[in-house]
């Protein structure tokens, strides 16, 4: 009911002013009633919307808790026999319940490397020793404006890890200095550089380790991290193996053209090569560019389907935004893809991914990729190579 100022609308004018004509009074009354009615309708609508949302949320919660029971009671106890069944695969696609997510990820990624919790502790100790001696020597060398030792160490990862940790999911405020997971992330990454000094720390790793830490306990996170990075696609990228990365991009382009021919041509005319966006997406398994909840769902599928799903996700994103991207020029596309919209929803992305077919002339991803590996030189265009013309369309747009 009207309070305070709105009620004034119904009042007559002050006595020192001429009175309202009666039609005007009538009109104001009608207008006022209309306003009140509109407000009521709005409120009703809001309430209905809230109710619908609550219902949807409850439905989702029910689905998750039901799924959780199924995963815990039926699937996980018989993992090896169940994991490939149609039913499990379908459930898997719908998203893993957060409470079993870490467990399923670590089972799916496996432990080919046979790393144990004890081994992790050993590498962690080594890392801590290195940190200690490093901080001692660097304080000694400080006055000499960095001695040779610390220069040699520049790429030895310790510095880089420190710099990157606080820039990993900064909006969550849990990995930064003083945050609850800061030391944990530091430990997992440090231990890895001791475990694989040949690879060391490479940017992008901090995001992957962080997602694992959010879903698994420390040693398990490390074991899964090391095994995940040991997969062929991840190895190719984290070793920064150019030739291999180019093969992945080339395979991606084959499916890109097959699935989204118009957008593919548009990207080609704008010289927007896939490395410009795939590097970020693949290095971080989408955890840097997608909202975290969506990224976790993408990881679910990655654990189910392997590397192929990473490229399928990429194509899903491009399909989802095809209409917008078709209207953009080089720089706007590049900008858009390096910072995807925050309101990207899981179900719309997954619909787009479902509509993406990973078949090219009856060949699956693995076959296409193998064929590219075999013919070696073919399609071995260096990325970023600006076709034949001397000036790139990207700079003419």
């Amino acid at each position, binding site marked *: 009911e009207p309070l305070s100022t709105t009620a004034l609308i119904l009042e007559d004018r002050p006595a020192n002013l001429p009175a309202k004509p009666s039609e005007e009074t009538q009109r104001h009354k009608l207008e006022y009633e209309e306003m009140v009615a509109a407000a009521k309708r709005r409120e009703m609508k809001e309430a209905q919307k809230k109710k619908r949302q609550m219902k949807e949320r409850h439905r989702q919660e029910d689905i998750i808790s039901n799924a959780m029971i199924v995963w815990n009671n039926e699937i996980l106890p018989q993992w090896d026999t169940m994991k490939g069944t149609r039913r499990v695969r379908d459930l898997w696609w719908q998203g893993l319940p957060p409470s079993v997510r870490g467990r399923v990820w670590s089972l799916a990624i496996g432990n080919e490397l046979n790393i144990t919790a004890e081994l992790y502790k050993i590498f962690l100790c080594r890392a801590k020793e290195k940190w200690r001696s490093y901080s001692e020597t660097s304080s000694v060398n400080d006055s000499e404006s960095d001695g040779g030792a610390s220069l040699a160490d520049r790429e030895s990862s310790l510095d880089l890890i420190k710099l990157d940790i606080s820039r990993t999911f900064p909006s969550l405020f849990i990995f930064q200095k003083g945050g609850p997971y800061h030391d944990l992330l530091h430990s997992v990454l440090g231990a890895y550089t001791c475990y694989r000094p040949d690879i060391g720390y490479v940017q992008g790793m901090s995001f992957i380790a962080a997602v694992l830490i959010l879903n698994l306990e420390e040693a398990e996170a490390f074991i899964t991290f090391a095994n995940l990075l040991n997969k062929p696609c991840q190895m190719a990228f984290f070793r*920064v193996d150019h030739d291999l990365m180019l093969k992945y991009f080339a395979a991606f382009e084959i499916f890109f053209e097959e699935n989204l021919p118009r957008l593919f041509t548009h990207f080609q005319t704008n010289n927007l090569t896939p490395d410009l966006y795939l590097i970020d997406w693949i290095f971080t398994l989408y955890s840097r560019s997608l909202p975290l909840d969506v990224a976790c769902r993408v990881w679910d599928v990655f654990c189910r389907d392997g590397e192929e799903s990473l490229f399928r996700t990429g194509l899903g994103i491009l399909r989802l935004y095809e209409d917008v991207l078709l209207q953009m020029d080089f720089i706007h596309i590049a900008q858009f893809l390096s910072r995807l919209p925050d309101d990207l929803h899981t179900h719309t992305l997954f619909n787009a991914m479902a509509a993406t077919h990973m078949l090219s002339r009856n060949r699956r991803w693995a076959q296409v990729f193998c064929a590219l590996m075999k013919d070696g030189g073919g399609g071995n265009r260096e990325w970023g190579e600006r076709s034949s013309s001397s000036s790139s369309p*990207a700079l003419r747009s």
Partner: protein
Amino acid sequence: MQNNHHKERLYKILVIGDLGVGKTSIIKRYVHHNFSPNYRATIGVDFALKVLNWDQETVRLQLWDIAGQERFGNMTRVYYREAMGAFIVFDVTRPASFEAVTKWKEDLDSKLTLANGKNVATVLLANKCDQGRDVLTNNGIKMEQFCLENGFVGWYETSAKENINIDEAANCLVKHIIANENDMLQSEVLDTISPQLEKDKGGTCSSCFRSQ
């Protein structure tokens, strides 16, 4: 299609330097006029577009924000191609990031030259100057001398956080890019002088001229 009546210049600019020196922050400040201490690490390359009014012309700057880890060098160096200018950034609180400046500059010059054989205009940014000036004062380096020796067209103490000198540095870079472009245009005209070109010269911008 190029439009001869509408003057517009488009330049690709690289932003390079060691990891965590503030490349992304500088770009965010320059393009979006804000600062956050919470930027995510850049993986690969990020992009931004800045549109400027410059002497009644529109200047569009394509900013390529390139990840700083050395390991990515081979991967990201192809992105140098066709750039007209660059910022090399270091963090005044981290001496090692300054030591890396010459390495970045040499790398840039060896991979990228203008059509006339000159190096691209490069401005040196001493970022995070709000947090102290350790590198600048302790080493007793004469920055002017350093810039001269290493072929920088200028240097600025910047702070993306406090918005210090970012616009000034960008204007300096754009000024040199345009000067370079005019230089090249002139020598091109001298090289290929012909009555036709002479007649058209007035109304076209450099890039229209090249595409003819």
